[in-house]
């Protein structure tokens, strides 16, 4: 070795350089897909965020409809003061819970959020059922329109929940893949699994038949 160094120091240096470059190349090759994977996680996380925002926009539509609905019903259905109070109460507690940041990965917080929303939904549907007893209301065009809007909003909420769950599925799957796990560990675990919405009770009750 000593003799070789004496023989051709420049050739030795070139060899070291070549080895170094090779190492850099190998490292780059190893990391390139990793970076790509990291970017994918970021992107899929962002899609979840966006779907959540869509969902919140639909919830806002529901919040906005409640006062109108309450005042319309109040005029015609005087015996429903109790039902109306429950709706207003449920709306207040639902608007009180806002999820941010790490909350989406916390099953308890998601469950509490979902429970508040389900309560609002439940109290609203009880109100609509109770209103069947008031012919005055059923014939009221403004009430019918509000009811239609509420139905439409409930359906949109359902769809945006599905969309959110789909986005979460894509993100969680990416994160659970080996490469996703490795990248997440290597970068200090910035990503956590997001929590799904549990299926709504009525969705479970409805039989799904494929054909």
């Amino acid at each position, binding site marked *: 070795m000593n003799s070789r160094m004496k023989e051709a120091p420049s050739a030795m240096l070139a060899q070291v350089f070549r080895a170094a470059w090779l190492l850099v190349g190998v490292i780059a090759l190893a990391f390139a897909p990793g970076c790509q994977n990291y970017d994918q996680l970021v992107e899929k996380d962002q899609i979840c965020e966006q779907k959540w925002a*869509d969902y919140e926009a639909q919830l806002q539509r529901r919040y906005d409809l409640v006062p109108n609905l309450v005042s319309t019903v109040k005029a015609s259905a005087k015996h429903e003061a109790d039902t109306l109070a429950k709706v207003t109460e449920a709306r207040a507690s639902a608007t009180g819970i806002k999820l941010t940041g790490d909350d989406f990965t916390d099953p308890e917080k998601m469950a509490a959020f979902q429970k508040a929303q389900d309560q609002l939904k439940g109290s609203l549907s009880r109100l609509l059922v109770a209103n069947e007893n008031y012919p005055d209301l059923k014939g009221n065009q403004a009430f*019918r*329109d509000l009811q*239609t*809007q509420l*139905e*439409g*909003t409930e*359906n*949109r*909420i*359902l*769809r*945006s929940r599905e*969309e959110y*769950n*789909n986005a979460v*599925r894509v993100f*969680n*799957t990416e994160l*659970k*893949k*080996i490469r996703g*796990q490795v990248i997440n560990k290597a970068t200090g675990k910035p990503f956590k699994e997001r929590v799904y919405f549990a*299926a709504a009770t009525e969705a479970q009750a*409805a*039989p*799904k*038949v*494929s*054909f």
Partner: protein
Amino acid sequence: MARGPSFPRPRSVRIALVALLGLVTALLVGLLPRVAFAFTAPTLEGPVTDTAHVLSATEKANLEQKIKEFRARTGHEVAVLTVPTLGGESVEDFAYHTARAWSLGSEKNDDGVLLLLATGERKIRIETGKGVGGDLTDVDASRIIRDQIAPRLKSGQIGAGLIAGVDGIIAKLSGLPLAPPPKAKRSSTDSVKLIASLVFLGFLFLVVIIQVIKRARGGGGDYGGGGGYYGGGYYGGGSDYSGGGGSDYGGGSSDSGGGSDFGGGGGDFGGGGSSGDY
């Protein structure tokens, strides 16, 4: 798959097991929500997909012409689907998943509309893409169903009902008001007609009395003074809808069928629209 935690095994095996577990979980998580939506949308045949076979050739051609003309003018894609049964799905699920599968409307504007009729369940739904929900609101959709479509379907005029529905959708998306509902229109004109004929009868009675008195007095008579009333516009009201196979619908049969360029634009919908039954 018996895995004792105390059983000593080389590191590589453990890693492989963890990896396998991760893969299986990922697969399961990936599969589960898909199983819940085992729904196959009907095959898109063009602007009008009449799998329930409730439309005559003329009605179908008329609908297709309207839809194509409207799409050429505005870019909005309206599709009509009739099915004999929803197969246990809710009308909302059926319409939403079909509209998404057909990818109606453009990806950029999400401006597709699906008018679905399920003859078995007697249900109607108008599903709107997110981009048309402003002009064709849920309330509009509900009114179209309640006032335009349902009354005609109730009287058995399925083709006329769907045509009126598409007319309503197109009117709303063009910023125009809806046509008055056929039933309400008829009943309101009925009362007008009743009053008019009462007034007329009273008038006639008066004329006759006067004539009788005149004649009794010996004056010359001119009978039948106001006879022209019955020919008036009252009875013509609403005929532009109830026509069914009326002659004004027979026109454009130039390009029916051939829906290969229809749908698939990328609209993804968001649950907008309204449902009703008849």
